[in-house]
Structure formats: C-alpha cells, structure tokens
C-alpha cells in the first residue's frame, strides 16, 4: 500500500466535476487561483491535482520497519512488506497485501485488503500457524493498525472522494511553501472529524497532517519526511512519524527503497493466493 497515492477522482456530479473539467481545460493547475473560487473549491482542486500527479505507477512494493513507543519510552519493532496494486476504476480503492516478517511468531502472516471509498474494506488474513485464510468483517478502518498509532485509514490510499475539502491558507512549511487544507472524511465510521493537511506547492506532497478526533480535539500529528522521487514522477516519504498527543505514544515507520512496476497482477491480490504470498 502506498501513502498518499493519488488517484482519479470519482465521477463527481455537478460543481466538482465542472471545476475539475475547467481546471483540466485551462491547465492552470500549479496554483489554482481561479477568480471567485471558494475555499471548498480551492481545497478540492488541490486534492485533485495531487491525485492527478500520482497516477499510473501501476504497482509497488516496499519493506518497512514499524517502531512503536509508549509513554514510558519502551519500544517495540515490527518488520513488514507492503505490496500495492493501483486500481484504475475511480470508484474503487487500491488493493494491498501486507506480509509480516518480524517478530518471528507472526512471520508469514499475510493481510490482504481491497479498499473501498466509503464502505468497510474487504479483508482477509492468512494465519500460517493455522494454515487458513480468514475473511475479516469489521469496522476497523479507523482502528489502530497492529497496535500502532496509525489507523488503517491513515495508511491506505487517499482517494479524492474519501473526503470533502476546504482550503485554509498558504504558509511556509520548512523550506517549502505549503497549501493548508482541511479535509472531512465521508466514511461514517471514521475515527476523525477532520484532518488538516500541509501540501507542498511544488510537488503536491503531504508534508504534515493533524488528525482531529470525534470530539474535534487534536489527536495526533503525522510528519512525512525523507521524500524520494521514483520514475521521475512519484514521490514517496520514507520516514513517517506519528505522535499521539492524547496518550503520549508514538509510531515511526521507516521505509526501504520502493520498487515500482514489478509485474503484479490482480491474481496476486486474491484471497486464494494469500496462502502462497511471500
């Protein structure tokens, strides 16, 4: 699975579609500053542009290390691999396969997810100790991903249609200049009321995200760092730091090199193949 992999928007009806079309026609995408543009329109336009810039990578694979830290400073490390398949249909999310390599007692456990835009995802888990694939049915998108501070919905593909948007302001973010937009989840079981995202104006990468919980209090902050560009087009962060402000816990994700266009196909992302996933 990828982070902030951008996608086709759904075929929006009405105003949104009009705007997208208009933007596409004028090509005035670098700084969408059309006259009389509302903050909502501007926010959406930014998301659309970011999505557009991240199309066509087909599939990817990356290894990562997940370090969990509690308030006592105690840590725990998990190692995993994530394979992602870009799905062209804009109404459907990407497919991803997560394989756990460490700790030893969960080695070979594989998690397959077909993400959805506004419904619970389809999920399967292969348990090597049981030698069986189990389909999981739950409302866990907002739940913690294997005990970390990342919710599953923070990790999966960020389709445009998953949120509604509102541009807040432009401001400096480190050495860069960022758009600051709010986005509001459409999925009803989301754990968030909103997210505030800092997107750099040059490459449309999410640099930082503040997550607000169900009571609209700041819950956690994600900082994306060590961005690298692949295939001259696709930017991926390699260090993701999530701090929970309410519990004092944090999680760091460190990615190794990504590989793209490795020749995966739909068949590799089916529950039947899960047993043989390596």
């Amino acid at each position: 699975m990828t982070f902030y992999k951008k996608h086709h928007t759904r075929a929006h009806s009405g105003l949104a579609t009009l705007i997208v079309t208009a933007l596409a026609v004028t090509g005035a995408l670098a700084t969408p500053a059309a006259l009389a543009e509302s903050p909502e329109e501007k926010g959406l336009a930014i998301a659309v542009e970011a999505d557009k810039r991240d199309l066509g990578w087909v599939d990817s694979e990356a290894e990562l290390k997940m370090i969990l830290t509690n308030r006592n400073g105690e840590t725990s490390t998990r190692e995993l691999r994530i394979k992602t398949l870009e799905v062209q249909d804009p109404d459907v999310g990407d497919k991803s396969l997560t394989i756990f390599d460490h700790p030893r007692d969960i080695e070979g456990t594989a998690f397959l997810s077909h993400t959805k835009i506004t419904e619970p995802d389809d999920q399967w888990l292969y348990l090597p100790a049981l030698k069986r694939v189990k389909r999981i049915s739950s409302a866990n998108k907002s739940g913690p991903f294997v005990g970390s501070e990342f919710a599953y919905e923070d990790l999966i593909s960020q389709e445009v249609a998953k949120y509604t948007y509102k541009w807040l302001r432009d401001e400096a973010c480190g050495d860069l200049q960022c758009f600051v937009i709010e986005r509001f989840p459409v999925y009803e079981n989301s754990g968030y009321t909103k997210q505030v995202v800092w997107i750099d104006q040059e490459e449309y990468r999410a640099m930082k995200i503040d997550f607000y919980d169900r009571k609209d209090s700041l819950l956690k902050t994600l900082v994306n760092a060590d961005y690298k560009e692949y295939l001259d087009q696709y930017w991926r962060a390699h260090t993701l730091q999530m701090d929970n402000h309410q519990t004092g816990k944090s999680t760091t994700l460190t990615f190794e090199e990504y590989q793209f266009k490795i020749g995966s196909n739909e068949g590799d992302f089916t529950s039947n193949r899960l047993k043989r996933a390596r």
Partner: protein
Amino acid sequence: MPAQPGDQEPQTGAAGSAEKTTNAPINTSEDDLSLARSRARTGFDRSVISYAAWVLRWRWAALIFCILVAVAAASGARHLGFTSDYRVFFGDDNPQLLTYEALQRTYSKDDNVSFVLKPDNGQVFSPEFLTALRDLTDEAWQVPYSTRVDSITNYQHSFADGDDLTVQDLVGANLELNPAEIQNIRTVALGEPLLVDKVISGDAQTTSVNVTITLPQKSEDETAEVMAYANQMAEKFRADNPNVKLVMTGVIPLNNAFNQSAKSDLETLIPTMYGVILLVMVILVRSATGTFTALLVIGLSVVTAMGVGGYMGIKLTPPSAIAPNVILTIAVADSVHLLVTMLREMRKGASKNAAIIESLRVNFGPVFLTSLTTVIGFLSLNFSDAPPFHDLGNISSVGVAAAWLYSILLLPALISILPVKVKAGQGGAEKAAGMDQLADFVIENRKPVLIVMILIVVGLGAMIPRIELNDQFVKYFDTSLEFRADTDFATENLSGVYQVNWSLPSGESGGISDPEYLAKAEAFSSWLKTQGGVAHVQSLTDTFKRLNMNMHGDDPAFYKLPEERDLAAQYLLLFELSLPYGLDLNNQINVDKSAMRVIVTTDDISTNQLRTLEYAAAAWLETNFPAGKTEASSPFVMFAYISQRNIIGMLTGTVTAFILISLSLMFALRNFRLGVISLVPNLVPIIMAFGIWSIFVGEVGLASSVVTATSLGIIVDATVHFLSKYQRGRRDRNEDVEGAVRYAFSTVGTALWVTSAILVAGFGVLAFSTFRINEDMGLLTAIAIAVALIADFLLLPTLLLTVDKRRKQRGEANIGAPQIATKAAE
C-alpha cells in the same frame, strides 16, 4: 492561668522599658499604671505592663498596622484554588504512586467517568433501553478528553461463520432490535466473562457506559470541564429516559468530590463555627464591643492565614479546608481569655484601660505559650507523607500566630478605642465552689482516684491495637455528597470503583503469546476469582480463548487457550487488526507484548482486606511467576497504604513535636521535675482518646496519623496552667502539696473547663464535615481535649499528691529556686 518564661531584664521586654511608659501614656492614667505595677510580681510582669501601656498609647497606630497586615496578607487569597485530583494525597516519592504511574505509562490511563444505568423495570435487554444505551455510548465519545468508551453496545463481539470472522459492535448502529436479536445480545453479554459483573450485572438489571479519560494535566479546570459535560449528558439522558436510574462514578467524579467536599465544608463548617463562637460570646463575654472585637480578631486571623496560604501556592483539599475552623477555635480561646479578665476587672470597678493592662498582664504569657505549642503541633504535620496535611499544618500555624498577634495588639487597641459598657459589681465572685469540692474529693480519695485513673488508662490503652485502619476512599465522603451516594448505588447494583492491577511480565518481547505464560496468567486469574472480595477479573486470556473458539468455527470445545505460541501471536494480530477506533488492546497489553495486566474489581472491602489479598497474590506470584517481579497497583492500593505510611512519617513529626512542646513547657515552668510529671497528663489523653475510639468506632483512617501531634499542642496548655498555679501555691504562698493543689483548682479550675469546652465545641464542629478524615480528626481531637481535662483534674493532682509528697518525706528541698512568671486568673 499559666506561666510564661518572661524576660527578667526590662530592656529585653516585649516593648520598651518601664521608664518610657511612665512618661508618656496618653490614655493611661498614672493610677491605672500604678495599680498594675502593684500587682506586678516579676520583671516579666513589668515588661508586659510597659507593653500594654505602649499599645494603649499607640492604639490607633496598632489598629491600622494590624489591619494593613491583614489586608496585605489577605490579597494572597486570590491565588487560592481547589484541587480536583486524588493524587494530591500522595507525596512525589510515594512508592505506591510511583508503581501506579509506571503502570499507567506502560498501559493506558485509567481515569474514567462511569455512567451506571438501571431501568426501573429491570430490563436491560429491551429495545427501548438498548437504543438509549447505544445513543449514550455514541455521545460519550464527545466527553472532553475521552479516549475510549466501553459499554455492552460497542463491545467487540467476535464470531465465526465458516472461515469468515466477524468482529463488530454487539449492538450495532443499524441493528434492528427484534426479539431474536435481543435474545442473541442477551446470551452473548451474559455469557462473556469480560462483561458480567463489570459492565453488566449478573441479574441483567444494571449496566454501565465507561468513559476512559486521559487528562492532559495542563490546567486545574480539566476535571470540572469533564464533569460539566458528563453532568449535562446525564441530565439529558434522565430527561429523555425518566424510567431509568442513572448515576455517575469513577475516578473523575472522585476527583471532583474532593473539590466538592472541600467547598461544602468551607460553606457549612465556618458558619457553624461562627454560631458556636457567638454562643460562647453570649455566655462568657456578654459585651457587644467585646464580641465585635473578638469577631474581628478571629476573622482577620483566618483571612491572614488563608491569604498567606494563597501566597504559598496552596490548593485547598478537604483536610486543608478545615484550617479556618482550627484557627477560629484557637483564636476564640485567645480572645475569650483576654476579654473575660478585662471585663471582670471592669465589673469590679477598674477603669477600662486599667482592665486592659491587667488582662494583658495576666494573659500575655499563657496566650503566648498556648499559641507556641499549638503552632509546634501543627508545624509537625510537615512530616506527614500526605501533602494536604502539610497545607493544613502550615495554614493553621500562620493563623494561630496571627491570632496571637491580633489578640495582644489589635484587641487591646480596639477595646481601648470603642466604648465598653459593663454593669459594675457583677463580676468578682466566680463560682469556684464546685472546684473546691472537686479539690477536696481528689485530695481525700487520692489513692482510689489514682488507681481508678491508671486502670482506665491502661484499659483504654489495651483497646488501641483493636483499631482497624481503613481508607476506603469512597467512604471518605459523606452520604450527602452525590459521589458517595452514586458510587454506593453502583457498587450495590453493578460493581464498585475499587480496582487492583497486576502487570504480569513474561520476560521477553512478544512473550505473552507463549502458551506456558498464558497458562500461568490463566491460573492467576482463576486463583484470583476464588479469593474473597474479588468481584471481577479482567484478563486477556479470556479473549484468547474466545478467539481460539472463533477460529475453529465457534466450536465450544476450542474455548481454551491456544497451544502454540505462533498461533496465539497470530490470533492477537488478527484481533488487533479487527478492532475499531479507540478500542485497542493497549489497556491490557504493553507495546512490546511482553506483559499484560490483570485487572481485579473488588467488592466493597476494607483496605485491610485488600492488603490481605495483595499479600496472598504476591505469595502466589512469587511461586508461579518467579521470572518477573510484579506489584499490585491502583488508587485503591495507594490508599491501602496511606495510613501506615503517614503514621510512620508522623512518628518523627510527633516525637519532634513532643520534645519541642515538652521543652517549651519545662522552660515555662522553669522546673525540670514538674516538666517530667507533666508528660503523664500530656500523653495519657491521646491514649485514652484512641482507646475510646476503639470501643465506640473501631476503625480509623488517615486522620489517626496526625491527631497525636496536633492535639498534643493543644492539650498541654491545660496541664501547664494547672502546674503553674500549683507551683505558685508551693513557692509564693508556701502551701504544702495539698494546699497547692487546692489553690490550683480554685484559681484555674473554672478557666480550664471553660477553655476546654470552647476547644471541644470548636473541634466538635468538624464532625459535621462531609469528609471522613476531617470528622475523625475533629472528633478524636475533641475527645482528647475532653479527657485531657479529666486527666488534669483527676490524674495530675493525685500524681502530684503521691510523688511530690513522697519526695518531701525524703526531706529533699522543695521546688527549686527558678521563678515562675505566673499570674492568677483570680
């Protein structure tokens, strides 16, 4: 009244030399002064007289000075606040607190608000109630600082359907609550060990919504903020569901109750105390000016102390909120002494100023000594392990010192300024006849009285070990407080707020999946369930068993722990992947999966029983979990040790106070021997008070640790007064032992019981506190003061008659040369 080690040298006198005062006093006639001087028997007397004349001369300056001091101090009161955190009862290095804080840093925090609900028809499993419960559960996520909400409706029920595993809310948002579904919900809820007796009662009549609160602890208002929101939710729920009883309990309401209790005590105890004071004034003083002045003195003393408390950054807690009452009690005693003497002099025909001078001459020493010993007693509270007692001690000490200052400066100045009306000839013959009879009785029956007294003391002392220390913090609060009533309801109908945690270390990363470890954890939880006082045990082993069953097509034969480590670890991974927002397992397992915690909810057991449980558990773990050391921890465990820790801490404080007070007393009496004899009537009342407590109450908490030191500072006064008069009788009047005892009875007997009555009434008022520790402390102190009077009237004289007489028979010299600056309250 009592003695005072006065300065013998005039130049070191309280305020300037005698020469100065003869030259100047505007308001004091030569007659007044010479009358006073004629009564002066010591250099100290002369210094006091000079001081009195000086105060009268500069009465306006003295008045303004005192008011300025009070106003300056009082402005500190704006810094005063109330604490809403039970943790204030524990010092920063309290080992139980440290263990618990470490536990909370490893797992999630346990602070909570628990809504406990009972439908009137006793039907939790009805569509109407379940719908209301589901809505309340959803709304509870909006409580400020909430990080988790648990109820039977969002309980993560897992079940299998072939190779499909479903994990979902037991009462889902869109679930149609038809009879079949309700039956299913009922079966699941009542069959789940994690829920029964904790979230739902076994009789299915009461259930709860538990909201976990993680306070940022950045502002004092957080608890109030949570409570305000929760109260609003509760009110709305009650309005929408009039047929459901809803109460609130948990750590946040507990914290709030400390705040409420302190405020309520300030609001009710101080007015009650003022009522007592007015009564005392009406009976003893009978003068409008006198009463007004005394009220001003005691009022300013309290204001000064609270203001200084504010500057010291003190946040009020129930124990420190009674400081005003302590100050009022001591201050009124000071004022009454001064006023009674003064008014009596005036009724005998003395001019007002002469009466003031005489009153100061007679009372300056005693009032100083009383204040000094009381301050020492209260300052010793700084040795306590519980910071609220430091605050009580320090505020009270400042107040008592202020009361002393205002009594000897503001009071004479103001009385001198204001008109005082008395009916002449009224005073004089105080009825001491009763005292004379008492003296005769004691002297004639010295042996039987002494023996009976000794028997009583020994008998009461023998009862002390029967006292049980109990600090069930819920019971600290009076049933008039909502928290107590609500928590009692919750405990009776569902489960209480008393919990104990054990974190069970496996010794290695991911080790909780080790079958051997799981078996041991399961054995521990089973063992716990067999222990008395245990109402519920929460253990992740129950979750493992259920998952194992789910993974085998819900076959009940597999409701057992997984037998391989990898399997257990993968179940856990699966379950963790399935949990929704806010309902992770961090409250039960640590981040490294090397330890999990077992949470016991206890019945309404005493802290003694809790310690028994804890020792037994420690022994069990020692045998079965030798790898990792683990200790029980929770707020309940912290309170279970609070009395013992404080008693140990206060041992040093009490001994220090005792030594200092005894030294001041020896110095005041200027006699080592009498000082030693005085130890008996000083210590005996405390023994008797605890003995009486043991018989009539039987159980005591935190209050027990501090009462000895504080009451000692107060009860020594009576002893000193009696002994000084006795000594004066022996030395100045050349009486024999019997004569001196008679003299002591007739001169201070009445004053002693009047003072004791005021103090008993003042501390007795604390019995109306909403906080058990204050009640206990007030009552124990009142009992100690009352029995101290008995000891001074019955034990001390018989002791003197026995010991001093024997000494005389041996032909030794009588009481030695050192002079006592003793003044009769004739």
